[in-house]
């Protein structure tokens, strides 16, 4: 039994190395000169091929990575905040009101979850343009709309399990719906709120096509910056690409290590309900 356990652990360690290897390979190549990468990606940088941080400097300059980072951060934070607030409010109202209109709206939200983005990408970019939503702020409105399905669904599930007595007590104390929601309901929603923020943050941070179509030409987010680096009429720079991949991964890893517990919990909750 003990022997088997040791074997298992050895296997798991081996697997972990395998899982982390791709990231290390990219990290390693990001320090090599741009013409030494495609030919020998698994070779450590040598004296001849070592490029220091040139790739990082080139990449940051070519893609305006700093700008892209802050745009990504801004869009993600604002969108997540908006989704959190408005979807919880809507979910509570609709669960309590429970009339025909609420049901129609609720099920429209649910249906939207199954529709692939390609279905609406063209027409959505047109409406976004007509309404002038082609800014880092405007795009958060779009994310609010696209995030509505999953978020309302998750909040609703939780709200239905909250006993109504709590709210009734608050109502007797003279609280209106707004006050009741924010002082009684919203604090209880905390665990679901964390899940909802994490699921939405992961999606919005990494999203490529929506921002590419709507604001990509003027305001590049990180995925767009990485993709942009790929094409550049005859000036594809592998070194800069490797460096930008590393820079794109770093914030995610930091965020993950800090809030790992919540992320994993959130993913489980999201999966089981979704």
């Amino acid at each position, binding site marked *: 039994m003990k022997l088997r356990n040791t074997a298992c652990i050895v296997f798991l360690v081996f697997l972990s190395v395998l899982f982390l290897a791709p990231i290390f390979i990219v990290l390693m190549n990001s320090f090599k*000169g741009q013409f030494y990468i495609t030919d020998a990606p698994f070779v450590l940088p040598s004296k001849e091929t070592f490029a220091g941080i040139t790739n990082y400097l080139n990449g940051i300059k070519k893609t305006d990575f700093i700008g892209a980072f802050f745009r990504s951060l801004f869009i993600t934070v604002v969108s997540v905040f908006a989704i959190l607030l408005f979807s919880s409010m809507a979910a509570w109202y609709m669960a309590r009101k429970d009339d025909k209109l609420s049901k129609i709206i609720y099920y429209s939200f649910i249906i939207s979850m199954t529709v692939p983005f390609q279905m609406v990408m063209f027409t959505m970019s047109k409406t976004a343009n007509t309404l002038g939503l082609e800014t880092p*702020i405007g795009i958060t409105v779009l994310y609010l709309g696209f995030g509505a399905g999953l978020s309302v669904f998750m909040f609703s599930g939780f709200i239905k399990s909250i006993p109504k007595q709590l709210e009734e007590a608050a109502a007797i104390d003279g609280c209106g719906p707004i006050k009741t929601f924010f002082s009684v309901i919203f604090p209880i929603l905390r665990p679901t709120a964390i899940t909802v923020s994490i699921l939405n943050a992961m999606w919005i941070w990494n999203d490529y096509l929506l921002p590419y179509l709507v604001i990509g030409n003027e305001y590049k987010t990180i995925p767009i910056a990485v993709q942009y680096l790929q*094409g*550049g009429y005859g000036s594809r720079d592998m070194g800069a690409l490797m460096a930008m991949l590393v820079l794109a991964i770093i914030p995610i890893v930091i965020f993950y290590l800090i809030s790992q517990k919540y992320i994993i919990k959130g993913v489980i909750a999201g999966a089981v309900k979704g």
Partner: protein
Amino acid sequence: MKKRFISFILLSAIAVSTMLIFTSCGKKSDNEIYFLNFKPEIAEKYEEISKTYEAITGIKVKFSTAAANTYEQTLKSEIAKKDAPTIFQINGPIGYETWKNYCADLTDTQLYSILSDKTLAIKGEDGKVYGIPYVIEAYGIICNLSKFDEYFALTNRQTEINSFEEITDFYSLRTVVEDMTLHLDELSIKGVFGSTSLLSGEDWRWQTHLANIPFYLEAKEQNYNVGTGVEEFKFTHNVKMKNLFDLYINNSVTERSLLGSKSVSDSMAEFALGQCAMIQNGNWAWAQIKDVSGNTVKESDVRFLPLYNGGSDDSDMGLCIGTENYICINKNASEEDQKRAADFLYWLYSSTDGKKFVTEQLEFLTPFNTFNADETPSDPLAKEINRWLSDTEKVSVPWHFVAFPGTSFKNDFGSALLRYAQGSITWEDVVNTVKTRWKEETAKAR
């Protein structure tokens, strides 16, 4: 509890109001025109021009650049927007067919008045001018003379050809190339030609530039009216393209099966680092070659050879000279913006400051009569173009590939070439792909 409640209300109020405020603005200011640039390699230089021009006139020119191979796609989504580009470009008659609903009449513009050869402009069926070329470019085979000198100095070479000047047609070229391949070590090169970059999006040197040769020969024979598009491409001279293409991929730095991961910058770097003796590319490549760190190619060693292909007129051939960059002004922009756009373009190609940018920064050879003989870029490839042009016996090959049907034809052509290089399909298959896809795409466009 109360505090938290209030702060939430406040925060949400702020959120909503900022959304409303920001969404309602973000429109362009009145003094701004929008230039959708085609050439990513000079995107940064345009920014400087924009700053200078704003300082002089107070008009802001916003430059935006599409990533490689996405210009049509970007233009398509941008032009449908409210703040559509004021200035954009088309790649020739086929591009004009696609975008004619957006092209303003440029007949009376100052820019047209300074165009040296008026036949170069793109004209509509009504005879009016809708696109004006703004740069003249040439491509051919770029050679590093020092490698040839080393080769001709070899005592054990097995060719009758004794100097670079004796390479005057495809057969002399092939003889030299194939013998050079036998002496790679002595020449300290990895291959005679730089990698034939066939990575998707990096294959335009072959599916347009090289393919221009058979199309040009056919068009000449059949009297095609290239300006209005050609319905059927018979590809009768495909062998001439194959001649050169085979020479490239069989005498290359990279094994032919691996060419699908090579980009243009890879092969430019190979040339710059002295790993190969030749590459096919245009004069725009010099900027890229000289910027490669560790560049070993001396300016005085750079030569252009025409795309000798085994045709009967090889020895009379010059470089492929032309343009696929025609500037257009968006007809749907306001009168005022159209005027501003025309003013800016005229300034760029006629004023002292503008011309300085064009020759020194953008390094364009232009088709405008405002440029004096000494106002040309000083790079070795530009000099080579002038050398070839001054030889009156040589016939330059026009850029007929601008009449190739859309991007998807070119992409399919490119991937067929890749699969041919990899050995998965035969040359016959490539020829058939080209012929059928050509027909399909022209049919679609009509």
